[in-house]
Every structure is written in C-alpha cells, then in structure tokens.
C-alpha cells in the first residue's frame, strides 16, 4: 500500500509538463540513437549529459533514462529492416527479424518487437519498484568495510562474467582501475599522475572517456566495415500482426521478461547476453525449432522482451547500492553525482522525488515509445537513408561539442581522441572495453572504502570479515572465485585431448 502511495507521488513528478517534455526528448533521441548504427545508448547518453547540468535532478535522470530504454526500442528497427543492429543488444533480432522483413512480414516483426519491449520494460519496472526499497532498507547498515568487499565482489563478477576471455577482461578491469588513479588522492589530496596539470587534478573525465571508448571507436570501426544501408520500407497498413503471431509471441514475451530481469541485476553482464539466452531458450522450447533463422516470430519476441527487461533491473544495483551494473547506468551515476545526489540505500529516503519520479517516468516513457515507434517507423527509417558523408561528420561534430561543453577543457577533447583510438585498437583485437569503464567508476569508491575501513578499525584487517553484510559479500566473493577456478581447471583438463586430436 505504501509502495502505491509513493508511486502516486512519483507519477505526480513524472507527469508534470516539463518532465513529460524531457521524457519525450529522451525517448526520441534514444530511439534515434538506437536506430543509427555507430552511436549506441552509452554515447547517446554521454553526449546529452552536459546539457542536463541546468536541469533539475529528476528531469535530468528522466531524460537520460528515456535515452537508455528508447535505444532498446530503436535498435530493433534497424535490425529488422536493414539487418544491421542499431545497438549491440539488437544483434539477435537481426537473425529472424530481417528474415521476416524479407518475407513481407516486417510489420508484424516491428509490432511484436515494440509490444514485447513494452511488456518487458513494464515487468522490469514493477520488479524494480518492489525490490529496490526492500534492498535499500537492508543496505542501510553497510559500513566502509562491507562496502569495500561489495566493490571487490562487483569487480570480480565484472571480470569473470563479461564477454570475452577472462584474462583479457581482467586486464581491462585493471586498466580501468589504473586510469581511475589519475587526479588528487581522495583522502589526502596528494597528486597522482597529474604531471602538474590543474585539469588532470580532477581526474580523467568520465564523459570524454566514455564517448571516446564507445562512440568514437564505434564510428571508426564502422568506417572500416564500410557498411551500406538499404533498409526495407514497410507500409503502415502492413504493420498489424495476425492473431497467430500474437499467440506464438506471448509465451516468448513472458519468458523473455523473466530472463532479462534476472540478467539485468548482475553487474558486468551486458543486456546482450540476456538476448542470446532468450533466443536459445525459445529455440529449445519451440515445437518448430527449424523455423528459427528463417523468420520465427518467437525469435524476435523473446530477445526484444529480454532486452528491455534488463533496463529496469539494471537500475537496482545503481539505485540501491550505487553500483552501475552496466556502463549505461554508469552515466546515470555520473548524472546523479553531478546533481549532488548520492545513489545508495539512502536515496529512497533522502530523495524520494528523484527515486519514485524516475520509476514512474519509466512507465510513462515505455508507453510513449510504444505509441511513437509504430506510426513513426517510416520517419525513423528515413534517418538511415541519410548518406554517411553527412551523417558521420555530424555525429563527430556533436561528440566534439558535447565533450568540450562538460568542462570547457581542450584536454577533454584530447582524452576523447586518445580513448577513441585506444578503444578502436582494443576492440579490433577482441578486447571488451565495457569492463574498463565500470572499473573506472567503481575503483575510486573501492579505494576510499578500503582506506576508511582500516582507519576506523585502527589497522585491523579483520574488519573486512566482521558484520553480517561483509560476511555475506565475502561468501559470495569466495563462491565466484571457486566457480571460476573450477571452470579454468575444467578448461585446462580438456586442452591436452584437443591438441592430440
């Protein structure tokens, strides 16, 4: 009952005219960012982050969250109509979505994708609404020692469950921790790796680094791939699916929403993984698995639902623990800190308007996106037809202006370029850069917690094993390490047989 009361207050915030406007801006920009290959929700959010400085905190977060789930909706459009994923999580939709479009069934694919996204997003928001306040209450008693163990656990999970080979991911995590050391020491203000520069005293900026690593590198990679877009154009009257399509999609949507919600909570697992898992589950459970790869509607419904179901659950670690589960929520964390809001267990009690306003806006945003995406699909598709010679320079120009406007610092532009080239090279050779960004965000807090815990306990290292919270996190940490050790051992034992073959 109390939850409904809080949600009502949240709707009062979300449905104010200016917040509705910013929600719409975020949803439209997010859809565009999702449609256009080369940007992605992370770069799309990072680009608009500087422009939120003059907004109220709730408005800023509502707009940025709108970009996040808007990109999930938009990414499927390019996947279905052009077989190019607008953003990473829409890769799986290319498989059956484009086949449906080639068979003249682009409309049902788009509708099922949009409805599934709405369903997954709604389930995810309900879960967020129910679980987050409970978890927040449990986390209030967590001190610096338990917080350090939690940060270490999050970094470990990111290292071992992210895509790519674990040792490469660990290297990226360590590189992110290293980059995070630049600046004044948080506890003593001792300059570390600043080389006398006042600009570097504040550390390496998150916005230039994220735009460089993700936005610039993606554009450079797409230039290498020399992609040519020729999307299929569906007619509005062909949009409506048959009853058989909806009947076969419904169970896939239900399963996809649960899969996406579960995967979204775990730090380091990108929403891409949930889409692959959902596709595999649907193929396994289908009475006609041979249809998959040739236009199976469940192959679109399940992954697209899972994709959007991660949006709400990935907010839980951010809002309750202050830990961004995926790089996109790290942008939201940056926005909160810029506006003087510290995410964590006290967020619900200290800033209820922000917390419940954000949740309510996600309901509103999902409804807006469902209404926008179908009638305006032709408009969004026409964006894909803008020639690269105009589109790519325009995106790069926005990147330059967006990055510079954060601190009016030319050094940020240099950081963006260096990060862009580094991201391009790393990704070309199969290194995943997402863990680098997560480690950059978590590393500073881990260090502060570690040193504070020791100062409070007067140098007693046993403090990291005392208290129920620290013990639970420590047990989880040992479990993750044990599971990874077993996995490595099993992989090592298999290797001699492979080489003999």
């Amino acid at each position, binding site marked *: 009952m109390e939850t409904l009361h809080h949600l009502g207050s949240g709707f009062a915030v979300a449905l104010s005219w200016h917040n509705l406007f910013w929600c719409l801006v975020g949803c439209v920009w997010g859809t565009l960012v999702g449609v256009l290959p080369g940007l992605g929700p992370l770069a799309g959010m990072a680009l608009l982050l*500087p*422009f939120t400085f003059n907004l109220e905190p709730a408005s800023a977060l509502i707009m940025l969250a709108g970009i996040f789930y808007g990109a999930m909706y938009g990414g499927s459009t390019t996947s279905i109509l052009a077989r190019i994923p607008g953003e990473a999580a829409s890769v799986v939709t290319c498989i059956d979505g484009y086949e449906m479009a080639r068979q003249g069934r682009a409309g049902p694919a788009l509708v099922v994708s949009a409805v599934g996204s709405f369903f997954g997003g709604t389930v995810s928001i309900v879960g967020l609404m129910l679980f987050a306040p409970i978890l927040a209450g449990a986390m209030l008693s967590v001190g610096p020692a338990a917080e350090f163990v939690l940060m270490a656990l999050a970094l470990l999970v990111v290292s071992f469950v992210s895509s790519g080979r674990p*040792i*490469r991911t*660990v*290297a990226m995590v*360590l*590189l992110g*921790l*290293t980059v995070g*050391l630049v600046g004044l*020491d948080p*506890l*003593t203000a*001792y300059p*570390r*790796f600043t080389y006398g520069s006042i600009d570097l005293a504040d550390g390496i900026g998150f916005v230039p680094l994220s735009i460089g690593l993700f936005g*610039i590198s993606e*554009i*450079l990679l797409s*230039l*290498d791939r*020399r992609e040519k877009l020729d999307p299929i154009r569906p007619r509005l009257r062909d949009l409506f699916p048959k009853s058989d399509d909806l009947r076969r999609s419904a169970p896939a949507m239900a399963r996809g929403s649960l899969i996406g919600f579960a995967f979204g909570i775990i730090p380091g697992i990108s929403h891409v993984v949930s889409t692959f898992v959902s596709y595999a589950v649907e193929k396994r459970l289908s009475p006609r698995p041979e249809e998959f790869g040739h236009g199976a509607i469940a192959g679109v419904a399940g992954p697209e639902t899972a994709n959007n179901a991660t949006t709400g659950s990935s907010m839980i670690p951010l809002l309750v623990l202050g830990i961004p589960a995926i790089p996109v929520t790290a942008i939201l964390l940056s926005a909160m800190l810029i506006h003087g809001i510290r995410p964590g267990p006290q967020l619900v009690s200290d800033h209820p308007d922000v917390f419940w306003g954000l949740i309510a806006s996600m309901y509103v945003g999902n409804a807006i996106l469902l209404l926008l995406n179908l009638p305006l699909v032709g408009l969004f598709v026409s964006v894909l037809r803008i020639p*690269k*010679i*105009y589109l*790519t*320079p*325009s995106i*790069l*120009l926005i990147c*330059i*202006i967006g990055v*510079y*406007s954060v601190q*009016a610092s*030319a050094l940020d*532009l*240099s950081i*963006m*370029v260096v990060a*862009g*080239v580094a991201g*391009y*090279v*790393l990704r*070309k*050779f*199969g*290194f995943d850069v997402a863990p680098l960004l997560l480690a950059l965000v978590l*590393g500073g807090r881990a*260090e502060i917690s*570690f*040193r504070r815990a*020791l*100062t409070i306990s*007067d*140098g007693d290292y046993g403090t990291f094993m005392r208290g129920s919270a620290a013990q639970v996190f420590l047990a989880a940490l040992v479990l993750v390490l044990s599971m990874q050790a077993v996995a490595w051992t099993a992989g090592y034992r298999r290797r001699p047989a492979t080489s003999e073959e």
Partner: protein
Amino acid sequence: MRTWSDVWRGEAAIAGILAAFGIYVTWSGLGMPAGTLAVPGPAVFPIAVGTLLALVSAGILIGAVSSGAEEPPVKAPEGETVVTVLALAGAALLFERIGAGATLVAFLAVLFRAYARRPWWQAALFSLCGASVAWAVFTLLLRVGLPWTVW
C-alpha cells in the same frame, strides 16, 4: 617453424604495452607516500593495481607468444578511418587555439572531402553550412558556451 612475423600479433603488442604501463604505474607508486598499515597512503593502490596489471598483461603476452592460437587476420584501417583520426586530433589541438568556428569548418571540410571525394569548394560550402547550423543549435538554442573565435 614460427617466425617473429607470426608471433608479433596485435594481442601480444597490446599486452606488452599494458605490461609496460603496469610497471610504470608501480614504479611511480613507489615514489608516493605509502602511509602505515593502519592508515594506508596514496601509494597503496597504484602499487597494487600496477603490479597486477603488469602480471596479468605478462600472462596474456606469454599466452599469445606460446600458444600459437589461430586468430582471424585483422584488417588494416581504411584510409577514411585514418583521416578521421587525424581530423579529430587536429580538432582537439586547434579548438582553443584558433577558435571553435574555424576548427569545426576545417574539420567538416576535411571529412567531407575524404568521405565524398568532392572538390574542395563543395567541401568548404558543406562545412560552412554545418558549422553555422551547429552555432545556431548549440549556442543560440541550447546556450552552450563555446569559444567560437579567438578574440
């Protein structure tokens, strides 16, 4: 028989650079105040993280050199990619020196010429239009402060 050209692959090069970076961070950390066991100083994390980075990167390097694992060939960057990087670097260096206006005009002109292979006068026209639209949107509409000129 393996040759250096087989061994010297991108993964090995990247791992080598990361290992060197880790060693540098550790060495720099040794010159910072370490504090005490009860009150760790600013040196602790640089030394710990730098050492781990060096060790893990060395592991990747050794694995890349010794395993002979099959890696798909990595394509060299396209000309447009190289021009884009150089244009971005130029924009970063010149943005405050010659002003945002001149920088963005030059930036857009270089990219338009590289991507579209049109004459310079068309590139100049496109870049002037693009920079003007950017000024209108960001400065007039969004009120973003940019150093459009140097005076």
